[in-house]
């Protein structure tokens, strides 16, 4: 019996898994017209890792950014374009082949300023066509590449400095060399699994001479260790075959991160910045004998500050005594490093400096807030305004129309701005809502109140937007409780049932019922409370670094179920998931015990389901222990059991966020270190979304309920939105097999809102793309339409064709915009163009038929348009406005036909004909027959007056005013008179074989 049972089970199971395999839907080919749009912001930009210039064209500048890819400027930083959008966006180094700088570019991925929030790289890339196409040429597991140096006298000889893994041991570090242009590589300097190459330099006069700074370092989620006995500065005199330490004059004891720079104009002079055990021995050292011996010159704050973040020196290519040091503010020496003064005002945290190749007073700075440019040697600096590199930790949205996006940024405070604006989302649309590092920013659901915070909940602010009142409300230590431990990125949550209820997590869950005025702790310590992970005071290694960024054993995510406020899920940075089903009275540890999930893996986000109170999703991020595996789990029994929903071969990059669709529970969105992944079958198959979506780190995802827009907070490319993801809800096997499938659409409001754009500055400032308010015709094609005719027509409810649109032809999802208009009226031919004649009138609200003809097939669907209620117009008023608009539209076309007929008659008449003169006189009152389209214009005639009134009425949201109605009567009368005169004159003319197009034919041309 048992045997049979097992057999049957096996059969069922094998069939089940077979069907499962078969039902996988790979979305790769189906995204079609679904496209991400980027709204920035760029006003605070984001962190820059490496700046690079062209060896002969001073206008060409490259910026390798911490999390936003590679950008190229052709105009000395005035504007930039991204050139690396299909690849890893975290950049360590960009280098051009000095012998072929327009074609050959190398990009080493993985940022090298190793702060807690740093992203990871995935290898070295090469382009041989100036950045159009890229090929990965190795170092897959390098995580961070610090330098790429091409031998100036032999382009095939390349040296690569690999800093390597930050969070774990790794053998893929050190200095590598290729002698065949990057085809093969040899490791030429290696110390051990925890020591990588932090900086590499070559002697430009003798390319056999190399200098390499090797740095022993390690980060964990709760500590940072810079320095050790293996950190050292090495030199090779033979192109990397042999190396020796060059420490004569160096401090004794362990060393940390060292920077190295050779003065290009006098290569015996070298500078290094040394992180050492004793503060008095840290600082800038100079060598005048090719590194054989060193002297300490300076240990000012700016020279020694945070070596892991600022260990970089750049020497003026023309003057060996001008030295610039990266730092909190950055500093410059003009006496060979003896004394320094700070650089001019710009965003703090300077990571790289670039001198113009011809004029050293022109400088560029890569900071935590974008690229700055100076024309006067760093005295005054200006930000370049079109690098949208903002690094969000978190975002949220509200319910306004258009909705706003709220979020906090690495080192750039907290902000909110509109998801869309007429004329584009501009810098001025963004409003600051907090300084410092910004994280979660939440809008009160009912009141005009915004909560924001800075690092470690040092401040949590409640901002009354209407009254401009700021109050700090973070929970403070209380009697009977230990010290509160807040994460760098402290979780905050608003109840979706009680708008004034507000949660904050330390190691405890804090709840307030009055918007943060009073707090109650409603949980025990929900973390592991492991004391070994609480020694942040000792963090930093040779240089103490206790910024709060390493605070650990804290709550990281809070989610109150959208179905029941008593169900609260908690995730901690040390791997716990805790659940309360009674509003915080009792807590149960429901951490998954799955064997593939390592213990204590950071719970990055919990998503309580919108469909079932027992269902939740949890994503785990192990990268801070060197584990880059994507983890996403689902429970459907309140956390008793968890099921893995990721095939790790399908998803690249560790996971930070998951979003469930509100309608289709099988539609899920995953934010990873390398972009956005989507599944339509509950995780059976994940596909990376690529339409205008770089593989940037997606830190947080939200789905706006009214618009179904997917809003992503990325750590390097600002806010990225995919408008209306609802078509994905209908992608299932049956959809894929249809000849054409229309997706459901909501009623479209014909928006009447408009605004003055004020587009000043848009030439050089980033302008975010807005959403379109057009009606959308959405359908699925199983195959791209390439051969034969395909048309899309809109019919009114009587079946009359009112306009045709250009149908989308893409395989997968097609989205066609219709701006609710029919084509502009045919306007009488004159000498000049009538401005009013370029207005297309809107149709009335109602249901319209969409007819797609494709070969012999005809597909029909309906689309519903409704008026915008914002205007307050009644149905009768709408009818009136539409009637007059169309009367003027028709009148304009009738006049066009009259002038056409009149022109035709004039052309047939003999020059001396009596009627000719009268006809010409008539024409001069109908259309402009002289002048030009600019300031040579002449007095308007009937056509201009009519078309101007038409466009005024058509473009207004309101019913025509009395003044417009009176004007309408004037024009109507004048047209009536003109027609009468024309008929009279026509009766005096007789032309043989006179042929003329009918009115209908004339209009159709």
């Amino acid at each position: 019996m048992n045997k049979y049972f097992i057999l049957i089970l096996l059969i069922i199971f094998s069939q089940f898994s077979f069907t499962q395999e078969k039902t996988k839907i790979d979305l790769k080919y189906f995204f079609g017209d679904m496209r991400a749009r980027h709204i920035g912001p760029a006003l605070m930009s984001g962190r820059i890792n490496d700046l690079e210039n062209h060896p002969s064209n001073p206008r060409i500048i490259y910026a390798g950014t911490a999390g936003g890819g590679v950008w190229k400027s052709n105009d000395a930083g005035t504007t930039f374009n991204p050139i690396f959008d299909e690849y890893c966006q975290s950049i360590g180094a960009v280098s051009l082949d000095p012998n072929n700088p327009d074609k050959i570019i190398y990009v080493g991925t993985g940022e090298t300023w190793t702060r807690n929030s740093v992203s990871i790289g995935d290898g070295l890339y090469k382009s041989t066509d100036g950045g159009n196409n890229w090929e990965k040429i190795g170092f897959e597991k390098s995580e961070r590449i610090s330098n790429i140096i091409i031998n100036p006298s032999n382009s095939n000889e390349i040296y690569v400095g690999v800093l390597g893994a930050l969070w774990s041991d790794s053998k893929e570090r050190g200095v590598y060399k290729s002698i065949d242009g990057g085809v093969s590589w040899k490791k030429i300097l290696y110390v051990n699994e925890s020591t990588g190459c932090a900086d590499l330099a070559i002697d430009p006069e003798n390319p056999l001479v190399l200098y390499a700074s090797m740095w022993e370092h390690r980060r964990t989620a709760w500590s940072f260790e810079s320095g050790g006995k293996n950190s050292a500065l090495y030199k090779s005199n033979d192109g990397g075959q042999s190396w020796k330490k060059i420490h004569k004059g160096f401090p004794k004891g362990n060393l940390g991160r060292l920077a190295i720079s050779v003065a290009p104009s006098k290569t015996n002079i070298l500078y290094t910045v040394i992180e050492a055990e004793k503060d008095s021995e840290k600082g800038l050292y100079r060598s005048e004998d090719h590194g054989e011996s060193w002297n300490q010159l300076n240990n000012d704050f700016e020279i020694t500050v945070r070596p892991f973040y600022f260990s970089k020196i750049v020497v003026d290519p023309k003057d060996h005594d001008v030295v610039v040091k990266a730092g909190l503010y950055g500093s410059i020496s003009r006496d060979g490093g003896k004394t320094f003064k700070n650089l001019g005002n710009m965003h703090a945290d300077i990571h790289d400096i670039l001198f113009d190749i011809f004029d050293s007073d022109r400088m560029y700075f890569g900071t935590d807030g974008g690229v700055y440019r100076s024309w006067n040697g760093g005295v005054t600096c200006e930000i370049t305004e079109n690098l949208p590199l903002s690094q969000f930790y978190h975002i949220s949205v509200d319910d306004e129309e258009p909705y706003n996006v709220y979020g906090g940024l690495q080192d750039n405070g907290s902000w909110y701005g509109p998801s869309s604006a007429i004329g584009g989302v501009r810098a001025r649309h963004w409003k600051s809502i907090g300084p410092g590092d910004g994280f979660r920013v939440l809008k009160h659901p009912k009141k005009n109140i915004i909560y924001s915070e800075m690092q470690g909940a040092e401040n949590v602010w409640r901002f009354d937007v209407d009254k401009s009142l700021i109050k700090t409300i973070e929970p403070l230590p209380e009697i009977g409780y230990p010290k509160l431990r807040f994460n760098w990125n402290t979780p905050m949550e608003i109840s979706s049932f009680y708008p004034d209820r507000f949660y904050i997590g330390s190691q405890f869950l804090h709840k307030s019922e009055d918007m943060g005025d009073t707090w109650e702790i409603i949980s025990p310590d929900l973390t592991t409370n492991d004391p070994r992970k609480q020694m942040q005071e000792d963090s930093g290694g040779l240089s103490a670094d206790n910024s709060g960024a390493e605070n650990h054993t804290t709550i990281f995510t809070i989610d109150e179920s959208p179905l029941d406020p008593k169900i609260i899920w908690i995730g901690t940075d040390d791997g716990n998931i805790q659940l309360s089903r009674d509003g915080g009275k009792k807590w149960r540890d429901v951490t998954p015990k799955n064997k593939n999930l390592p213990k204590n893996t950071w719970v990055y986000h919990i998503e309580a389901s919108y469909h079932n109170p027992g269902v939740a999703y949890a994503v785990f991020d192990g990268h801070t222990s060197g584990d880059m595996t994507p983890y996403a789990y689902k429970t459907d029994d309140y956390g008793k059991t968890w099921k893995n929903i990721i095939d790790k071969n399908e998803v690249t990059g560790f996971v930070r966020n998951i979003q469930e669709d509100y309608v289709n529970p099988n539609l899920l969105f995953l934010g990873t270190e390398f972009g956005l992944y989507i599944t339509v079958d509950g995780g059976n198959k994940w596909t990376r979304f690529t339409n205008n979506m770089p593989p940037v780190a997606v830190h947080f995802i939200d789905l706006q309920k009214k618009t179904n827009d997917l809003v992503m907070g990325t750590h390097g490319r600002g806010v990225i939105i995919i408008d209306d993801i609802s078509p994905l809800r209908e992608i299932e096997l049956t959809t894929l097999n249809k000849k054409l499938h229309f997706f459901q659409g909501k009623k479209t409001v014909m928006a009447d809102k408009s605004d003055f754009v004020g587009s000043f500055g848009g030439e050089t400032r980033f302008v975010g793309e807005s959403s379109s308010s057009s009606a959308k015709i959405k359908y699925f094609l199983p195959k791209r339409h390439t051969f034969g005719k395909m048309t899309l027509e809109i019919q009114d409810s009587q079946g009359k064709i009112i306009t045709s649109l250009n149908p989308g032809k893409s395989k997968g999802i097609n989205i066609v915009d219709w701006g609710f208009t029919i084509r502009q009226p045919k306007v009488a031919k004159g000498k000049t163009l009538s401005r009013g004649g370029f207005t297309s009138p809107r149709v009335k609200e109602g249901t319209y038929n969409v007819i797609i003809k494709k070969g012999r097939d005809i597909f029909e669907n309906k689309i519903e348009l409704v008026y915008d209620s914002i205007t307050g117009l009644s149905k009768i008023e709408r009818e009136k406005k539409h009637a007059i608009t169309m009367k003027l539209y028709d009148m304009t076309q009738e006049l066009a036909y009259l002038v056409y007929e009149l022109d035709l008659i004039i052309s047939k008449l003999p020059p001396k004909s009596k009627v000719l003169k009268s006809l010409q006189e008539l024409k001069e009152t109908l259309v402009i027959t002289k002048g030009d389209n600019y300031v040579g214009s002449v007095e308007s005639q009937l056509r201009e007056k009519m078309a101007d009134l038409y466009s005024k009425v058509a473009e207004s949201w309101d019913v025509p005013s009395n003044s417009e109605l009176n004007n309408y009567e004037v024009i109507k009368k004048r047209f009536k008179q003109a027609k009468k005169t024309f008929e009279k004159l026509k009766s005096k003319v007789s032309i043989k074989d006179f042929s003329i197009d009918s009115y209908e034919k004339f209009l159709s041309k």
Partner: protein
Amino acid sequence: MKKSIQFLIILLFFALNSYSQSVDEIIENYYENTGGIDKWKELKGVKMLAKLNQQGMEIPIELIQMKGGKSMQIINFQGQSIKAQVFDGEVSWGINMMSQQPEKSDQETTDNLKLENNDFPDSFMDYKSKGYSAELIGKETFDGTETFKIKLTKEPKTIDGKKEDDITFYFFDTENYVPIAIQTMITQGPSKGMTMEITMSDYQEVEGLYFPFSQTQGIKDQPSLPLIIDSIELNPIIDENEFKFPEN
């Protein structure tokens, strides 16, 4: 607007190119599948009547391209035919919309246009003898469709006094070998460095040759402008004087 139409039209005609054996096979297949190379070589000119459709604004245009480089783009506004861009093989000119008078293009634009005099019916025709090179970059998915991505390099253009490579990427449908998209790096003006993209569909036959009757044009990853071709006339007879710059 005028600029974008010009660009569209220039790209529209100077479409195709490549090296390596497999590239040549793709191009051969393309010609074979669209009417045969001999028939393409016999072609002396095309005239297209088309409509640009931009947010409800329908603009009729007329595009003429002759073997040898003569070309004309006429925009129709309010009954007026406006020669937006004309080239007689030597002089490039167009009507200024403000003054309504003809004006010559800058010399660099004209010189760059001259380089394309031998690109009829498209750049791939006899590309090797023209000194162009074509390279198969690989396969890429475009519009959900598998394509061959081919890079065509023509003679360098001069932009603001400097020589710039003239590189275009073509995406040939692997199933039927017709191009469904073209991408070009913009080398001048404020959009320099961005990628211009044209997509093509609705290939239909005209007297034995296949042309894409529907196209879109724009900056890659941004909204595009559709162009629908109503009719195509082969070997049209156009008065030579129509192409000449009207002196006085």
